[in-house]
């Protein structure tokens, strides 16, 4: 599989060529591939690392350096990057150029050379291959790459409905077989009744009696046929809906188990469309596709046999062009596939405007840009329609041409048949009128399966592309290994971070070796500039992501060993902009504790200072808050989220900028609610406004992924470091806002300070 990826997609070697292994006597621990030179032309250069040395091979010529003597620096371009090897005195020894697809491997090389850390748990081949294939494999999460396998997998969803499939299929086969009877009987009526009667070989009474039997048989046949068709339609259509339901359920359930990483890498719209539209697009294929195609093929075979059986020469004339017709249908399908691709692309342009403009309607209106949005939408809508018209142009041209060709064959059949129909019965070419009527009727029936196969080709393409998208999610494995996460421990709230390194993208370390211990019941403030890693620390504590190295322990137990759900229920997070679900206030407060007593709900709301405003609403606790709680103000949403947290009775509480987005009065109320909430719990509070951390036992100053300072407010102020800088800046800003400062230089200084932050 890996070889295929390297050959087909990356077009570079899947591992270090054996030549280099022979050349290097030491064990190869790591290697990277440099694909460009300084003129940005493609080259092949290998960088190989052993326990002591780094080798650079180009055209089998080598340079080597002692790792301990090397320093590195990297340069980032838009398309090309470089890693420069420097001597101890910072003299440039070698510049290695590489494209973006080598990024992950080179980031590891840089880390290795900076930290002089060459203890890898994986082999050099594994590190190199994983680094290169990661983005590809992330996109191709599924192992099912074969179209046939996808179809079979899709059909496996019919398993629970075997009985219905069997009944429906039997109905379909019997309907097809009974469809053949009327044409045969029609010929019989002409040849065995009408013709002999007209020739005087059959008397009226006998003709009528045989005629009634045949007509009754015809009637019964049609009746049975409709019964079989009803059976097929009823069983199969309901079953199609059932399969779509099962797929939707499996998808939604699976998504609940996926990590935050998955949601960060997939658009919400795309996930929603897979659960809704894609599952919907496969139901007709599941319901009718396979059976219809099977029946169509069965019909073509039986009709061909009937035609050849009735008249060998005319039968061949009719059946020999069938493969040509089917091939034409295939070619048309391929052409349509390309047009459909463009439809999809244009349609995504249309929906992009919708998903842009509708949530941003307030901005659209406030800038008076309705006209602009209408024009933007109209332009894309028209572009989509242009392609849809192309679709209709294509099929409306194709099918008449195809059917004209089929009708030419039919006319040819007539042309060949007429001389034979008027020949005498003793002639070797003679064909009876009845046989020819049967032939004609079978010939007419011949068109339907061809049409069905044509439609099914399109249905199959649609269904498999949707199935790919569905299975892609179903096959996405949570990136966190939770096999050992079984301990259901009631937490006390002691937290230990030891040498925690973490990166979201596997390249840039957001946390660079964080160490701290928090005692049970302690309140810790996290301060520092945006992007310094404060929120990341809290996300790792919740195990939304797994750390790259180091350990995080709760009550002395590695969180990797704790049952994730059980652990998270004991950690509550109050965000700056809390998320409320569409539903009532009561539903939202009881979200984490569905069975909470109503008295507990009210008690929690009183503590959270939210009872009063809730009771101000006409429907009080039964008030519907709207999508994302949009009918409430920011402060109200915040206090409801605090009540939700209180009701959950967490052991650890994370306050992530909980009061930064509200006015002073609301902040006072929220702060008051929070003060009650934090009692007896371990608290980590992230805040930009240092005044909100007045109750913190200790404050950690986080900067660029490291904890720079730790101490109480007083200790940190005495340190005269980053914290002092932040505090002074905020004090000055406060004074500035309250008109206590008149010195313009100070104003500039404060603004510069804010920019720094």
């Amino acid at each position: 599989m890996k070889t295929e990826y390297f050959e087909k997609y990356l077009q570079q070697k899947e591992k270090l060529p054996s030549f280099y292994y022979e050349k290097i006597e030491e064990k190869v621990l790591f290697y990277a591939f440099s694909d460009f030179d300084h003129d940005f032309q493609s080259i092949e250069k290998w960088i190989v690392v052993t326990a002591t040395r780094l080798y650079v091979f180009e055209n089998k010529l080598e340079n080597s350096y002692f790792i301990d003597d090397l320093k590195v620096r990297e340069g980032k371009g838009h398309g090309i990057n470089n890693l420069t090897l420097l001597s101890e005195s910072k003299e440039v020894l070698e510049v290695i150029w590489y494209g973006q697809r080598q990024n992950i491997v080179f980031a590891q090389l840089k880390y290795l050379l900076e930290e002089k850390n060459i203890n890898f748990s994986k082999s050099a081949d594994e590190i190199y291959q994983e680094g290169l294939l990661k983005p590809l494999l992330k996109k191709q999460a599924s192992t099912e790459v074969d179209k046939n396998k996808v179809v079979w997998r899709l059909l496996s969803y019919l398993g629970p409905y075997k009985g219905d499939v069997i009944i429906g299929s039997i109905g379909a086969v019997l309907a097809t077989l009974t469809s053949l009877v009327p044409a045969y009987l029609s010929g019989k009526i002409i040849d065995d009744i009408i013709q002999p009667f007209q020739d005087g070989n059959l008397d009226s009474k006998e003709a009528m009696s045989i005629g009634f039997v045949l007509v009754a048989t015809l009637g019964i046949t049609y009746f049975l046929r409709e019964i079989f068709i009803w059976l097929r339609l009823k069983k199969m259509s309901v079953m199609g809906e059932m399969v779509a339901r099962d797929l939707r359920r499996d998808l939604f359930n699976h998504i609940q188990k996926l990590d935050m990483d998955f949601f960060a890498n997939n658009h919400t719209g795309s996930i929603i469309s897979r659960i809704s539209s894609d599952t919907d697009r496969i139901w007709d294929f599941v319901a009718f596709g396979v059976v219809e195609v099977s029946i169509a093929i069965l019909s073509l075979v039986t009709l061909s046999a009937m035609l050849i059986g009735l008249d060998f020469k005319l039968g061949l004339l009719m059946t020999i062009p069938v493969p040509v017709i089917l091939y034409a249908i295939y070619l048309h399908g391929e052409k349509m596939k390309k047009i459909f691709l463009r439809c999809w692309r244009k349609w995504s342009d249309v929906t992009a405007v919708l998903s842009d403009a509708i949530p941003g309607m307030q901005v659209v209106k406030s800038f008076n840009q309705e006209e602009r949005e209408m024009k933007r939408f109209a332009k894309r809508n028209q572009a989509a329609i242009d392609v849809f018209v192309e679709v209709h142009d294509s099929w409306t041209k194709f099918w008449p041409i195809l059917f004209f060709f089929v009708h030419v064959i039919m006319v040819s059949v007539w042309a060949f048949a007429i001389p034979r129909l008027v020949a005498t019965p003793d002639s070797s070419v003679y064909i009876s009128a009845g046989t020819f009527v049967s032939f004609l009727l079978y010939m007419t029936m011949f068109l339907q399966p061809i049409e069905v196969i044509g439609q099914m080709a399109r249905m199959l393409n649609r269904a498999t592309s949707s199935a790919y998208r569905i299975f892609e999610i179903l096959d996405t494995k949570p990136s966190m290994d939770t096999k050992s996460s079984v301990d259901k421990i009631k937490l006390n709230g002691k937290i230990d971070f030891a040498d925690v390194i973490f990166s979201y993208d596997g390249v840039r370390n957001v946390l660079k070796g964080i160490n701290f211990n928090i005692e049970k019941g302690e309140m810790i403030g996290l301060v520092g500039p945006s992007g310094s890693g404060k929120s990341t620390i809290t996300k790792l504590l919740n195990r939304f992501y797994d750390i790259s190295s180091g350990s995080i322990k709760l009550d002395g137990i590695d969180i990797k060993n704790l049952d994730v759900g059980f652990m998270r229920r004991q950690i509550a997070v109050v965000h700056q902009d809390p998320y409320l679900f569409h539903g009532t206030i009561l539903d939202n407060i009881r979200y984490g504790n569905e069975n909470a007593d109503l008295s507990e709900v009210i008690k929690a709301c009183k503590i959270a200072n939210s009872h009063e405003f809730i009771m101000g609403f006409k429907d009080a606790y039964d008030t519907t808050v709207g999508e994302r709680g949009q009918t409430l103000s920011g402060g109200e949403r915040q206090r409801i989220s605090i009540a939700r947290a209180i009701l959950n009775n967490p052991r650890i509480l994370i306050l992530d900028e909980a009061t930064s987005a509200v006015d002073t009065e609301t902040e006072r109320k929220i702060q008051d609610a929070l003060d009650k909430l934090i009692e007896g719990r371990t608290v980590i509070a992230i805040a930009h406004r240092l005044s909100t951390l007045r109750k913190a036992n200790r404050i950690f100053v986080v900067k660029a992924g490291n904890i720079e300072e730790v101490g109480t407010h007083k200790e940190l102020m005495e340190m005269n470091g980053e914290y002092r800088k932040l505090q002074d800046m905020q004090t000055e800003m406060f004074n500035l806002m309250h008109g206590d400062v008149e010195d313009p230089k100070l104003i500039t200084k404060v603004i510069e300070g804010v920019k720094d932050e």
Partner: protein
Amino acid sequence: MSKFKLELDKKLFYLKNKSAEWVEVDLKPCFPQTFADQYYSLQDDKGEEIELIERIEKSDFLDELDIEILNEYINFKKFTFVIIGIYSIAEDFGLRNFKVKTVQGDRSFQTGLDVWPRVINNGAILIDDLYGEQYWIHDLEFGQDELNALV
């Protein structure tokens, strides 16, 4: 003497305020895709803007030697692949595989199925691949039909 110097690995240094010390700087285009030759921000290693340059060739801030150095730096910074022919665009499971001829030679790259080529306001087409590489199309020697199916 120029107030800029460019090292072998295209690190750009600037003699800030005529001090004796060279400071590492970056010259970032403000509109790298739409108006790539207009407006550059010269920034120090902390991301602080030293100078906003409207057009390199016409800037009063720069002399001839500066312009030469900065152009060489920009050539490195803005390097992206330019497609001159398309052999094939095939849909594969979960991704779209492009086999193309670029100025640098034949190359293949992949995008997600829901990532489409973008038509930039100057009419050029830009494709971002899974690895963050960018591919521009201005004029094609061949493969226009393949491209038309996507754009």
